[in-house]
């Protein structure tokens, strides 16, 4: 294994160099790195993680003995155990030799600990891949060196990016079966970099790997691949960053109201962004009432501050009406409230997402009825958004959400908790989509939905202001702004209402 400094230097050669946005953390992070493996069926994801567990000594003697026992008969030409069996724990998986559902495993090196989710490659089980991706900091994307990028590879890379993963390792696997062909590795890495760039991913490290033989996983593969002098997989993982909770202001989705006796009333939940301390002024949404924080209560002590991730009980200075599903937020940086939002989502079940159907939407602790109108679907090959009225299973789409009651969101980019939601089919109670809020839609008149574009007719000064925002810049394709006089705008609204 290479020393960390050398690995860092080597890393630079393989990273697609783009403007660095985050300053590197110097302080050692003791939180575990959460990663997923993804890629098409049979590319070797489970074998790779099995190998990782094996070579980091996370497999105990009794587990190794059952692995040897279970591998007999399915042993490969090399006489090595079938490492995938360390992950594929369901009988159906063992019988079919594929992964069906995510397996979560925990392991550590001297430098840090890891939570890894090994996800299935089979298209039918994309929902389980999305489950794993939603909480990951980094994705290891596998490609079979003999086959190259497939549609499923693109799908997984896209879902991982949508869900906010910004660090990728491209593991060009089964390199042993190509005679350690360097040109092949270079070609696949190149192709993937193009894809990553189109997805806006800045950090890609490409590694030629043999998961089965354990080359460039924990131990280097120099003996077979003298041409590769980059880092091993584990070296990249040890240096990766965990995502800090991107924060806007303070957010506390209220899970329950605690009333153990007459003298105590506290609001329990997990801080979903920002920080809070006694004395802070907060707003309760959707009601809009205002109060001040008097205490932050936990079992151990009355605390003088709480930050994102903390499970707390908040006490306010006055009697206000707060119930489960409400959001307590900082008064000067509030989330968006409204009846209409734009989102991107992944359809997870065979019925897909039907136009106009009313689903349950759950975000944080808030569950409400929503009507979902698909707008467009991503074509994986070209990266283009095509008009769509409904979304089939596994589709990635843009949708409009329309609520009966006020909804409360941040964009997913700003907050991974208050910007995320699931859709539940009221007929089956199953989770049918995972979604990310991209923007609030103005539920004003003057909006005409044409094929794929929204036309906004706004007074000139407002139009200019809107077009100067960053959010608008990133969504130029969706919206067309027309400058009109204030008088004419009123006229348009009247004509719609009337």
């Amino acid at each position: 294994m290479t020393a960390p400094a050398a690995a860092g230097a080597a890393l630079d050669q393989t990273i697609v160099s783009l403007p660095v946005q985050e300053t590197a953390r110097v302080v050692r992070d003791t939180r575990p790195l959460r990663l997923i493996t993804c890629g098409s069926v049979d590319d070797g994801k489970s074998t790779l993680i099995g190998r990782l567990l094996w070579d980091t000594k996370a497999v105990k003697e009794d587990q190794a003995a059952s692995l040897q026992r279970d591998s007999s008969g399915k042993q490969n030409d090399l006489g090595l155990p079938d490492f995938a069996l360390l992950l594929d724990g369901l009988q159906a998986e063992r019988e079919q030799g594929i992964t069906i559902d995510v397996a979560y495993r925990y392991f550590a090196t001297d430098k840090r600990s890891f939570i890894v989710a090994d996800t299935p490659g089979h298209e039918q089980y994309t929902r389980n891949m999305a489950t794993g991706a939603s909480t990951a900091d980094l994705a290891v994307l596998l490609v079979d060196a003999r086959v190259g990028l497939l549609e499923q590879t693109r799908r997984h890379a896209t879902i991982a990016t949508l869900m906010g993963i910004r660090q990728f390792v491209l593991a060009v696997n089964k390199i042993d079966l190509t005679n350690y062909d360097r040109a092949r590795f270079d070609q696949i890495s190149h192709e993937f970099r193009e894809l990553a760039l189109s997805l806006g991913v800045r950090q890609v490290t490409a590694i030629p790997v043999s998961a089965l033989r354990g080359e460039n996983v924990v131990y280097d593969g120099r003996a077979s691949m003298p041409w590769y002098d980059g880092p091993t997989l584990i070296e990249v993982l040890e240096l990766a960053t965990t995502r800090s909770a991107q924060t806007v202001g303070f957010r506390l989705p209220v899970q329950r109201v605690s009333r153990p006796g007459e003298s105590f009333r506290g609001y329990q939940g997990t801080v979903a962004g920002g920080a809070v301390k006694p004395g802070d002024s907060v707003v309760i949404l959707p009601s809009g009432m205002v109060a001040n924080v008097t205490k932050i209560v936990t079992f151990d002590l009355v605390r003088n501050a709480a930050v994102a991730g903390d499970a707390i009980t908040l006490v306010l200075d006055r009697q206000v009406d707060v119930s489960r599903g409400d959001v307590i937020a900082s008064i000067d940086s509030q989330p968006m409230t409204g009846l209409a939002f734009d989102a991107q989502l992944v359809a997870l079940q065979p019925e897909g997402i039907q136009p106009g159907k009313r689903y349950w939407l759950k975000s944080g602790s808030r569950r409400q009825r929503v009507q979902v109108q698909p707008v467009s679907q991503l074509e994986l090959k070209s990266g283009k958004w095509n008009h769509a009225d409904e979304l089939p299973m596994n589709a990635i789409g843009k949708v409009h959400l329309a609520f009966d009651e006020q909804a409360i969101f941040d964009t997913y980019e700003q907050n991974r908790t208050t910007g995320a939601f699931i859709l539940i089919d009221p007929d089956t109670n199953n989770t049918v989509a995972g979604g990310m809020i991209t923007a609030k839609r103005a539920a004003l008149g003057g909006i005409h939905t044409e094929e794929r574009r929204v036309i906004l007719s706004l007074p000139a000064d407002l139009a200019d202001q809107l077009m100067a925002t960053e959010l608008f810049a990133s969504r130029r394709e969706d919206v067309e702004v027309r400058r009109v006089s204030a008088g004419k705008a009123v006229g348009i609204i009247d004509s719609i209402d009337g």
Partner: protein
Amino acid sequence: MPHTLPETELHNPQSTKPPLDPHLKALENEAIHIFREVAAEFERPVMLYSIGKDSSVLLHLARKAFYPGRVPFPLLHVDTGWKFREMIAFRDEIVRKYDLDLIAHTNPRGAAENITPFTHGSALYTDIMKTEALRQALDAGQYDAAFGGARRDEEASRAKERIYSFRTPDHRWDPRNQRPELWNVYNGMIRKGESVRAFPLSNWTEVDIWRYIQAEEIPIVPLYFAKKRPVVERDGMMILAEDRRLELLPGEVKREEVIRFRTLGCFPLTGAIRSNATTLDDIIAELETATVSERQGRAIDRDQAGSMEKKKREGYF
């Protein structure tokens, strides 16, 4: 009974403990979040309490989650009648000390048909006295959510399980068709008769459990600490020989050894390990160099490959 809390008592004076490290803190936060979510979304939750180390941590987290209120659901102990004596004494002490509601259930078939691990074999015995008994108790209480202390690192089929694990009206788990579970947004929607098993400790490892017990000074059954105890060797396991019902088979001899237990279940089916670990520090040090996994000492997990998945499909935790 609602209790009134004078303002001053909100500050817990015993809290001179150093703060938790970020890793344990994150695990604790996640578990508390799950407890609160389930308590808020379901009508009749219950917490499975098996008296072991994981249950002790689970209970501690439940008390934290609902503080300053009481734990808002009962504890259910499925008592096979073959638990270690010290476990039952510990359970009763904890229930008294923390003012908890305990339901202890034993399958009446066990007594009626005299089903024992010795006469019926571990597989059938577990099936009737644990799985069937659990189903009886859950049906009787009409519970729609049951907390369990299972961890994903325990076993390969557990590693696949969701935090909200959906069960059909006859308590079956369909591992091939689990609901997607994204972020920490849990889907608690079920029909009447269906239920959810909720696992707040899903992402904890065995070492996390011990480090947390140490950091939070959580009481545990003394059998986890090494002491000289009477044992007998059977089926390659050292089992505790203090219960009158354990009859020695020809060739078996009772002897004294310094041992402890890494997991606790029914004494005839739980193997002891030779160990000198008498403190939590010792246990953690021992664990960090352990070469076998914790479930090795459990006869029921070794019955056949995939046995845990099979039991889970049938309604076992």
